[in-house]
Structure formats: structure tokens, C-alpha cells
């Protein structure tokens, strides 16, 4: 499931950055960093246009969070 987090007045930028974190039983997360800051850094983005978060869940055992940022 992909959810919007925020959008700014900047047009959709040509750069995209992604950051992800995975966990077990929604309780144990092994140091993953799915922050907006990390996604922006991975894409070399300094002006953010949109932020989306995608969440996946497999039988409540595996949980994944993925942040995707666009910008310039």
C-alpha cells in the first residue's frame, strides 16, 4: 500500500531517492532507516517535491517500509 505523506509547490523533480527499512512481527527492526532525509540524500535531492511511503506486510511476520522522495 502506497500512502502520500506530503507534497510541496515544487513541480515533480527529475531526481528520485529511496530509503527502506524492514522488520519482523512489527516489533523488531534491525537498524533500517527509511527517513525522508535518507531518501533525499540517496537521490541527491535538496529541494523536495513529493514524498510517498509504501508499506508492505506479509502475514504480519515481515513488515517493510519504503520512502520515495522526488525533487531537485
Amino acid at each position, binding site marked *: *500500500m502506497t500512502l502520500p505523506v506530503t507534497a510541496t509547490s515544487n513541480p515533480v523533480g527529475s*531526481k528520485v531517492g*529511496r530509503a527502506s527499512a524492514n522488520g519482523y512481527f512489527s516489533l523488531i527492526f534491525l537498524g533500517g532507516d527509511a527517513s525522508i532525509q535518507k531518501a533525499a540524500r540517496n537521490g541527491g535531492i535538496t529541494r523536495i517535491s513529493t514524498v510517498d511511503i509504501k508499506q508492505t*506486510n506479509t*502475514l*504480519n511476520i515481515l513488515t517493510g517500509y519504503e520512502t*520515495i522522495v*522526488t525533487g531537485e
Partner: protein
Amino acid sequence: MHRNLLGLLIILILDTGCLRVVPGAKKSGINTLTTVFFTGTEGNQYFIKPLKFHGSLQNNSLEIDVTFRFKDSYKGNATINISFELPYALKNIDSIVISSFILDKSAKLGEYNSSELQLTEIRRLFLESGDKSVTSRYTAKADLALLKRLWSTNSFYIRVFHSQKELNFNPTSKTIDKIGIIYQGVFNFD
């Protein structure tokens, strides 16, 4: 005691999580491998999520992601970001070449050898030390039409030249499968 544990496990599994519907997301389908953004007059922007390649040396690997825009033809440049996981920091890169395992039979005599693609405008984004390796992240540009032709061969490897050394990275078996799915999903519109 065992019954209680079993009951707890069943409750965990039957909790809302397993009943959630993920729209359009088939495991290993195109929606899990790419993201599409509508950009108005410039058509759609495609983001190919990181694909893993393993190095010929132990503890060497990289992940590559690709961003490009498509309206009615594959022209212009794609942005390619690469994260290297190496035992040392990759402080500079002389060149990066993506080559196909298969010769492109559609290339005509005298035409650019489309089985090789040299990245341009290579720029370092950051270096970051981890517990077991150092992440060196770079961004570069690639001709989109050539990238499409390379992708059509369904399998390619990456060579990195730095400080008179060469590093080779080959796709994992999962990556080879993903390359084919991605080609059908985002490189097959013209």
C-alpha cells in the same frame, strides 16, 4: 503452554495484516520493481528501484537505480545512481561501463556498439562507513535510447575503472529475472 503460544501465533497471523490488499502489487511484478510519477506535459517519470549486483571479489556489491522520463519516445538522458558496498571508500571513479552479456544483433555495421554503454557526468553523492563495509554512492547520466537497447538483451554487467584498477559486478539471479520484467513494464512502449 504450547497451546497458548500456538493461539498467540494464529492471532498474529490472522490480525489485519494478512487480510490487507496491496493494490496492483503482485510479488516480483512491475509495481514492486518500479514507481511511476505523472509529470504533466513531460509525460511520466519512471523510477527503477535498486537492482543488486555482486562483485567478482568477496564483500563487493553494488545497487543501481534508474530514473527517466518518457512521453512518446526514449530520448534524452536517464539518471543512474549507484551505491557501492566495498571494504574501502571509493573516492573517485574514472569511468563506468555497462556491458551486455549478449551481442546486440540489431546493431548495423558502423553503428555505435550498443552492447556497451559508458556513463557520463559521474559525480559522487556521499561516502558512508558501515559496520562491515563503506557505502560510496555516485550519480551519473546515460543515453536513454542506448540504455533501452542494452536492457533489451535482458542481462548486463557493470565495469568500474578507478585508480588504474577495474572492478566487475554481475547481476544476481534475482536481478536477471527483474531486468526482464522491467523491460516489459517500462521499456516497451514504442
